[in-house]
């Protein structure tokens, strides 16, 4: 049975388990697939010009082999895995690729990926690290260049009105995801952390409308399903680097804890806030993707005190903590991530001050190496309950 015909959670799980199956189906139907890195390339433009966006991710399941012949082992293990999957022909359904400077390694990866894959369309989006007038203009310019090169490649013109429509469509899905996350505010949450991650990861390899339909089905299904998630002592928020498999969340939820909220880019960061519908749609896109999108890779202007800095950088997480009644935070980072690494002491200090205990988990981005982390999580849960 094709993933197209499945419904709700069953579909999400199936898509999650066979990530590329649906994309291959769609491609067989003549659709075009556009791979991209991180949450920064404006997908509205991609879908408006007829591509199905696919967030290229690595996997913790398979050891890295060929990529090590091109990139040293001290580089972000997820990027190395992404390259590996590419070289090994696992991602053989792309019609184009949008790279980006989101962090230094991702930029270098983007170039090396295209160097290896030689895809018919490649565009690089240079995302500044600072947020103010000139950088917003620069971001807008970058998005314009992306639009123009994709127009050139497809031979289509993208009218502002058409783009507006597309933005609405994406905002609609963002709203549905927020609604989905809302279901986790209750205690016990209506949706487990594992389920949520499965859904989000499947959304990242589905057409927008198809994903939104699936979300609607899931929301209805979850509200009315008889079996409930078990009530547990710890209600945790998960902050950190992208999760490409559920294993870490499974490990956490196998302890006396539910993961009820996240601040990761295979989660709230990706869907987060809507794109404002501005006269020139590119203004709205530039602001949403440079400023509203929250990732430690973006440097927030320093204000008059460190405390004010922390508020500006982490205030939105504190709001999550209040609204989702979180009583503990897990700061998860794969080894060799610089942007998240530098963040850890400051964010820890911030939540210490708010009286929310936090645990820093550094992992090697492999399944096998997770076992030792379990004791830390269990002890952390024992500590807060």
């Amino acid at each position, binding site marked *: 049975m094709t993933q197209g015909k499945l419904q709700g959670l069953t579909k999400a799980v199936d898509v999650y388990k066979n990530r590329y199956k649906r994309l291959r189906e769609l491609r067989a139907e003549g659709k075009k697939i556009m791979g991209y890195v991180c949450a920064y390339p404006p997908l509205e433009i991609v879908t408006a010009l007829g591509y199905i966006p696919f967030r290229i991710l690595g996997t913790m399941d398979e050891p890295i082999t060929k990529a090590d012949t091109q990139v040293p082992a001290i580089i972000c293990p997820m990027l190395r895995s992404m390259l590996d999957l590419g070289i090994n022909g696992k991602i053989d359904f792309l019609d184009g690729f949008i790279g980006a400077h989101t962090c230094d390694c991702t930029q270098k990866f983007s170039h090396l990926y295209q160097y290896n894959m030689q895809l018919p369309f490649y565009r690089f989006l240079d995302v500044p690290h600072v947020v103010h007038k000139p950088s917003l203009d620069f971001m807008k310019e970058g998005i314009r260049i992306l639009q123009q090169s994709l127009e050139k490649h497809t031979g289509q013109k993208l009218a502002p009105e058409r783009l507006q429509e597309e933005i609405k469509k994406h905002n609609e899905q963002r709203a549905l995801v927020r609604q989905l996350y809302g279901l986790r505010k209750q205690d016990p949450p209506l949706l487990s952390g594992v389920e949520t991650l499965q859904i989000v990861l499947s959304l990242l390899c589905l057409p927008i409308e198809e994903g939104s339909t699936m979300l609607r089905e899931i929301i209805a299904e979850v509200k009315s399903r008889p079996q409930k998630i078990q009530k547990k002592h710890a209600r945790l928020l998960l902050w950190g680097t992208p999760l490409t498999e559920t294993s870490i969340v499974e490990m956490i939820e196998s302890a006396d804890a539910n993961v009820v909220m996240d601040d990761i880019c295979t989660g709230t960061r990706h869907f987060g806030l809507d794109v404002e519908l501005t006269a020139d749609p590119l203004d709205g896109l530039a602001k949403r993707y440079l400023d509203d999108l929250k990732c430690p890779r973006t440097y927030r202007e320093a204000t008059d005190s460190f405390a004010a800095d922390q508020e500006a950088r982490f205030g939105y997480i504190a709001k999550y903590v209040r609204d989702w009644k979180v009583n503990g935070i897990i700061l998860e980072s794969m080894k060799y991530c610089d942007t998240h690494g530098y963040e850890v002491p400051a964010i820890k200090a911030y939540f210490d001050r708010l009286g929310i*205990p936090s645990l820093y988990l550094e992992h090697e981005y492999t399944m096998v190496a997770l076992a*030792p982390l379990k*004791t*830390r999580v*269990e*002890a952390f849960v*024992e*500590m807060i309950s």
Partner: protein
Amino acid sequence: MNFAGIDIGSTMTKIVIINESGIVSQVIGPTGAEHRRLANKVMEQALTQGGITFDDLTYVVATGYGRINVPFADKQITEITCHAKGVASIFPTAKTVIDIGGQDAKGIKIVGGKVVNFVMNDKCAAGTGRFLEVISDALGLGLQEIGPLALQSKTKIRISSTCTIFAEQEVLSKLADGAPIEDILAGLHEAIAGRVFRMAEKMKIERDVVMTGGVAKNVGMVQAMENHLGYPVLVAEEPLLTGAIGAAILGREFVEKALQRGEEIQKGARLLEAASFFK
């Protein structure tokens, strides 16, 4: 009522049985990875020593590396929580626990017997008790001998290999080149103490500091650690037992709470059989 705490480490099993008033019996099981699964035998020993039967145990809490594998425990609690509880019961003034075990090293911050923060290293043998075991074996010395020897050193010798097995090699060839054994040992103690100290300092070590685990019996390590801290550390009479004691106390508290609330106590399968780590 009797409560048992059982701490299965990587190479050693420790059991403490307590009742309302205090310790009934305490046993440190046979050493070595080949024996660690025989927790049931150690339990029988502890029971005989205490003059009670297995059914006299109201509650059994397992902790340590092998806690998941104990078929006769009612509850599993991590060694971090148990060490904190155990240490606090012996040293009420303790704020920081530094535990160097066979398979890992931990730092724990405690307030009123509760864990408020902790750090852990369990990647490889460097910086754990195993490192010293391997070296003392290689030197044909008893684990208890190397500490005092290290204290006699005037000038430490640095061992460049981090990997335990290569360090062993390096130590022996340095020895062959005529380097004094005490200087080599001093270098090794310093290396481990340094690693563990830097790790524990991540949670800002506060006085009083208690060292636990087998390595706490090693005066050389204790002093090396004190050199980093700049003040003396506290060591329990039997530093190997704090985890088991903590487990037993946590079991007692759990039962008492349940009784106060009038709840019935959830118990495990209670099969007094060997533990298995890999099945």
